[in-house]
Structure formats: C-alpha cells, structure tokens
C-alpha cells in the first residue's frame, strides 16, 4: 500500500511556496510512522513533517526544491 507524503494545509500560515531544506531519511530507507522525516522552510521558519506511515521511503522532491501545500514530496510503501 502506498502512502503519499503530502505537505499539509495546516503546516504553515499563508499560501506561499516553501522549500525542502532537509530530508531526514534517505531514498530507499525504512522509516517509522510518526518519525521526523523532512524540514520544510517558509520565509525563515522551519516546519516539521513526520512520516504518515511505516515502510520504505521514496523521495520524489529533492532537498532545495521549491514545493507548496498539497505537493506530494515522497511516498512510503
């Protein structure tokens, strides 16, 4: 079963774009549900994203890529 890692609507205020400043697991790694998985920055504020499920991580958007609310930045299978 594939779970999308999607930037949630309530991650930060406003609708501006953001950037992935750090992936906290590698592509192909096994991650635990609830574990810190990425840092997303808007302006100068860093927001945290956690893994929505346990399993193998596939990174779709790389560090330094510009993303937005709703963007699927990776998947867990």
């Amino acid at each position, binding site marked *: 079963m594939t779970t999308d890692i999607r930037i949630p609507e309530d991650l930060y205020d406003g609708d501006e774009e953001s950037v992935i400043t*750090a992936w906290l*697991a*590698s592509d192909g*790694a*096994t*991650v635990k549900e609830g*574990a810190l998985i990425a840092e997303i920055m808007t302006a100068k504020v860093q927001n945290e994203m956690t893994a929505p499920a346990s399993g193998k991580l596939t990174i779709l958007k790389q560090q330094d890529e510009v993303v937005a609310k709703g963007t699927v930045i990776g998947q867990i299978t």
Partner: protein
Amino acid sequence: MTIVNERKLTIARAMAEAMAQEMRIDPAVFVMGEDIAQLGGVFGNTRGLVDEFGKDRVRDTPISETGFISAAVGAAMDGMRPVVELMFVDFFGVCFDAIYNLMAKNIYFSGGHVTVPMVLMTSTGGGYSDAGQHSQCLYGSFAHLPGMKVVSPSNAYDAKGLMTAAIRDNSPVIFMFHKGLQGMGWLGTEAAANVHVPEDAYEVEIGKAAIAREGSDVTIVSIAMGVHHALKAAKVLEAEGISTEVVDLRSLVPLDRDTVRASVRKTGRLIVVDEDYHSYGVSGEIIATVCEAGDITLKAPPRRIAYPDVPIAYAHGMEQFCLPNPEKVAAAAREICRTAVPA
C-alpha cells in the same frame, strides 16, 4: 548500506539531542546563552530544551557575555556542568578574558585539583554576506591558546558524538558549529552534513580525526565546512584520474597529528583548506606538523586554501573571491599533482 529505521538529523538537531540526553541523566548539566530558551537558539541548536527541562536549567541570559561566561566557569568549578553559548564566535572580543584566562587556565593554576567541565558552543563561518563581525571562523585564535579543547563537526553524526563527549569531559571544550552546516535553510543547505544519527547516546572521541574519503594521490586536510569543499573537489578530481584522501580533523585541540602524518606519508601531497585567516593559524600548523615529522617526503610544496589576511567584506563578490571553495581546492590539487616526481 541500508540502515533500518534511518534517522537523519541536521547538525542543529543533533546538538540539541545530545544536550537533552545528557540533561536527562545528569542534573548538573544546564544550558545558558542568548535566545536559547523559547527561541531554541538563533541557529536551532537548543530547540525543544526549555519545553522539556524548564527555565531554571535552560536560561536566556542578558547580553552580558563576560558575566555569564565567567559565571559558567565558577559554576563548573563548583560542581555544575554548564553548556554556554557565545552566539557568534566573532563576539569573543567582549569576553575573552573569561575564556582564555579563566576557563582555560584554572585547571592548570590549581595543579589539576579543580576541574572546569564546561562546554562553550559558538557559531562560525561566513559566505552569506554577514560582513566582518559576523562571519569569522577564528579557529586559530582559540586553538592557539593552551587549556581548552576545540572541536568542530562536519556532519550530524560527529556533532552529536562530539557534543556528548564534550559535556562528559571534565576539561573545558569549545564546540564550534559552522552556520552553513546547521541545516537552517536561510543560511544555505549542505545535504552531506545531514546524516544518520543513532538514537542512543554515544561519544565521538575528542582529539581523533576521521578519514572522510580514502585516496592515494593527494591529502586534503580540513575541518567543518572545508571538509565539504574537499569532498566536492575530490569527486571532480576522481573523474580526472586524481585520487584524493580527505582528512576531517574534527578536533583542533587535541590535534590528531598522527592521522595527518600517516595520510601525507602515503600520498606525498598536502593541501589544507582553512576558512580562518591565512597566517598564524590552522593551515600553518598542519603544514608544520607534516614538515617536522622527518620521515615524510613531499612530492610537491604544501598548499593552503585559506581566507586572506583581510577583514571579511560585505559585498557578495568580494567575500566569495576570498573564501575557500571546491574549485580552488581542485585547482590546487591539479597543480601539485602535475609536479610529480618523474618515473
């Protein structure tokens, strides 16, 4: 290599995690500095600490570096284990007496009968136009003066291990963290600094360098950001047939001279990458360490890629002209590898 439950941290998080783990097991450990409580540190390294440990053990201070750093010395001598932050290493001028004359010398003055188990963590580094009083590295200034250990990690694994070791050390340790490696996106990102960090507490031995990359044609020695410049240069050089060994010092005091010498004994060529000022510092010390060994034959004169002996300029083009970077490192490597001993 697949790591089960891989958990990468930024250096900022790794530092905070080390402090939290030590604070959980040792009530003597406390943290103080400017904006380190609710803000979690301007550079993210005390994130979450005040929420877990409260304001008594995680203290915001007034802007009084001489006051709170000399207070940390006294507290350390009286049985506490303070972790104190000097927000920018450039600010050491206002409080250096407390650092080099008290913190660093009291163990000696007492003949070893008192200990000073404190950690002074401080941010270093430039490259983002913060100008001459907010961009320095000052490795040499601290490493030169006796009585304080000096460490600076290039990655999150070493950051947590060195911080843990520093807190457990009964001697004073200067923990220098490079702003560009912290993982704060507004200071740029360096993906290679974010590596897997085990959840359990562990130490990285202070005074031991690491071989960040093995090679046989040239040795590049550096610390913190310079290690990443060297690794990037090494990748480029590999495609050109030059095999590069990169030594990550990790500690300036004690300095792992053996590892440096062993590497240059093998390759015969030395480049030092030093973001601090060129003269009277780390780069000269590494070169002297190799030259005085007596049993190392150099195939080419040693080279140093360092910041010139000028204050750091604000304008982007001026600062970048002066800073070490992978291109300068690779160019130096090509140059000294071409001066090979004839077959």
